[in-house]
C-alpha cells in the first residue's frame, strides 16, 4: 500500500514573527496536512498561521559543504558592530 507523503510544517507564532520550522507529519494532500498540523502542533495557542511544504521539495545544503559555505563569514568579523571600539564617553551608539 502507498504511504502518505511527508510534509514539513512551519508555524508563525506571533504577528510580525517569521514562520519557523516545528516538525513534520504525514498527510495525503496539502489541505489535510494543514488540518493535521493544527492538531499536532498548535494545541496550546502556538500559532497564528501554518505553512506546509512537501518534504521532498526541500533542498538542503550538505554538511560536507559547511566550510565552503560558512567559513568565509568567520574571517569577516568587521561585519559585526562590536568590532569597532566605541569610546567610553560616546554612549548610545
Amino acid at each position, binding site marked *: *500500500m*502507498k*504511504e502518505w507523503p*511527508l510534509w514539513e510544517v512551519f508555524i508563525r507564532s506571533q504577528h510580525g514573527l517569521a514562520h519557523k520550522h516545528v516538525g513534520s507529519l504525514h498527510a*495525503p494532500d496539502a489541505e489535510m496536512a494543514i488540518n493535521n498540523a493544527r492538531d499536532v502542533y498548535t494545541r496550546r495557542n502556538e500559532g497564528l498561521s501554518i505553512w506546509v511544504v512537501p518534504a521532498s521539495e526541500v533542498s538542503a545544503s550538505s554538511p560536507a559543504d559547511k566550510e565552503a559555505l560558512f567559513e568565509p563569514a568567520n574571517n569577516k568579523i568587521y561585519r559585526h558592530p562590536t568590532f569597532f571600539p566605541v569610546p567610553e564617553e560616546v554612549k548610545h551608539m
Partner: protein
Amino acid sequence: MYAQMVDTGVKRVQGLDEMSAEERAFQERIDAGIKIEAKDWMPEGYRRTLIRQISQHAHSEIVGQLPEGNWVTRAPSLKRKAILLAKIQDEAGHGLYLYSAAETLGVTRDQVYADLLSGKVKYSSIFNYPTTNWADIGTVGWLVDGAAIMNQIPLCRCSYGPYSRAMVRVCKEESFHQRQGYDLVMTMARGTPEQKQMAQDALNRWWWPALMMFGPPDSDSVHSAQSMQWKIKILSNDELRQKFVDQTVPQAEYLGLTVPDPELKWNEDTGHYDFGEIDWEEFRQVVAGNGPCNRDRLRTRVKAWDDGAWFRDALLAHAEKKSERQVAAAKAA
C-alpha cells in the same frame, strides 16, 4: 524506560584510539556537546540504535493511550473527561513527533509502525497493566508520566538533534500530564473513605510496575555504556529510578497514602530512600508478552490499523483525483 533495554549491537565499547578517523571525529563532536543532525555522517550502530530507541519510545506513546482511553466514557465529570481527552491527544502528538524524528534516520513511519504491529519492536512494559478503577487514571498521570518526565528531561540534552528537539516539545506538555494526575489522586485521597481506598488500591498496583519502567540495573551493561558514550542515554536506569523514588515518596506521604513497600525507608547517610527488591521475573514475563494486557493491547492496535486502511487509501485516492483535475484544468486553460 519508554524505551527499555535498547540493543546497541556492540560487544564492547571502543576507545577513541581504536576508532576509524570518521568514528573518532564523530565521537569528539559528541564529547564536545555538538548535536548530530540527520544528514551528518554517523556510525551505522548509532543510527540503528537510535531507530530502535526512538521507535520504542514512539510506540509507547501510542500504546500508552489505551489504558487511559479505557476511562474516557466513564470519567466522573465533564471537566475530568475534557482533561483526560486532552492528555490522551497529547500522547498521540508525542508519538507523531517521535516517529518524525525516527524518519530522519532513513526509515518510514509505516515501516517502524509495522514492527510494532508484528510484535517485533516493543513498547514500555507499563502499558500492559490494566486501569481497573478511576483512581488509576490519576495514578498513571502521577507515576507513569512522572517516571517518563524523569527520563525525558535528560534526553532533551541527547546528541541527536531531531530527538532532542522532540523531547523538548514533549517535556513542555508532560508536566500538565503529571499535575492533572496528582490533582485527581489528591481529590480522591481527600474524598470519602471509599475514594481514598480506591486511591490506595491504585498506588498499590502501579508502584512496582512504575519502578520497573526504568528497566533492570544496567551499570555494567555494554549497551548502556555504548548508549552513554553516544549520549543517547544520559543517566543509568538505577540513577533514574532512585531519583524517581526520592521525588515520589514525599508526594505520597503528603496525600496520606502508603507506598506498598515495607522496606522503604529514608537513609540519613546516603540522603536517599532505600527500597525493596523489584520482582524482575514479573518484568521479564511482561516484556516477553505475558503481562495482564499484552495481547489485548496489540490486538487493539492491529484492529485500529486494519480498520483504518480504507480511510487512509480513500484520502490518498481523493488527493490524487484532485491533483489530476488541477493538472487537466491547467492544460485546458
